[in-house]
């Protein structure tokens, strides 16, 4: 499991769990309880989706889609369980659907890659030692990976999320997450090598 660096705030478990009363009312279809849950969790759900899709506008639309799915499934929610992981799992599924529906590279090939990176809210700046062309080719090669491998790799390698959180969000085991990350890195390396980029 990759160690999270100390200057990166923990994204998971940062939202306090809503009261049992609110969760029970939500389960019965109470719109006010749903709004209260939305206000409490929209930021974390948006942040999680943004990590996966890396497009602020798409992340907003997918946050709306996620909460619509959450409302639609309210009677299947088990109020004894925490809300956050359940919401995150639905959000991950919505983000995966979006990635599957989107043609790989469709955005990267037509727009300025550096502008896209600049639009993404991020604290880190690219290393000037690595040429922009190599970064672009890496991002394009990454976009060509199967969506399920991409999600596991971006959450684990780039966002440094704990494997158990990724496993819970994807509904798979920790071992399966590690395997997906390994396969993603191996495929990425092969793709880059075929383009003459040797890491």
């Amino acid at each position, binding site marked *: 499991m990759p160690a999270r660096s100390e200057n990166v705030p923990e994204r998971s478990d940062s939202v306090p769990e809503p009261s049992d009363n609110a969760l029970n009312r939500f389960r019965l279809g109470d719109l006010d309880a749903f709004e209260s849950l939305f206000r409490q969790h929209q930021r974390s759900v948006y942040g999680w989706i943004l990590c996966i899709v*890396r497009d602020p506008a798409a992340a907003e639309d997918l946050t709306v889609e996620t909460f619509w799915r959450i409302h639609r499934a309210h009677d299947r929610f088990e109020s004894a369980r925490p809300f956050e992981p359940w919401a995150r799992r639905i959000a991950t599924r919505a983000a995966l659907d979006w990635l599957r529906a989107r043609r790989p590279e469709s955005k990267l090939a037509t727009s300025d890659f550096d502008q896209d990176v600049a639009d993404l809210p991020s604290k880190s700046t690219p290393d000037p030692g690595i040429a922009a062309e190599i970064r672009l080719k890496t991002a394009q090669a990454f976009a060509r990976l199967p969506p399920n491998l991409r999600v596991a790799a971006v959450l684990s390698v780039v966002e440094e999320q704990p494997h158990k959180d990724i496993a819970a969000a994807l509904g798979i085991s920790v071992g399966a997450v590690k395997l997906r990350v390994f396969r993603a890195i191996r495929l990425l390396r092969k793709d880059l090598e075929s383009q003459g980029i040797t890491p």
Partner: protein
Amino acid sequence: MKKQDENRIKQLLQQSLPPVDPASEPARDLWPAVLRRLDESEAPLRATVGSAPRAVPWPHAVPWFDWAILAGLVLFAISFPATIPVFLYYL
């Protein structure tokens, strides 16, 4: 794949896809959009569940056998016009 290669690929990936700022939040309030989405999905349901039964056009509203009885009576009246006063008397 060597561990060193794997780490280099990971480093390259981190440089190509910088991590998202954990404090990032939506640029607008998304609650109105959620409400609109809920309304859109519930509107077709309301249209089928909440509305009155659909009116059937006039000729189809009367069962076919009623039309058959009426046609028989008309034929009988045309064939035997003298029976019309008797029918009217018993109506």
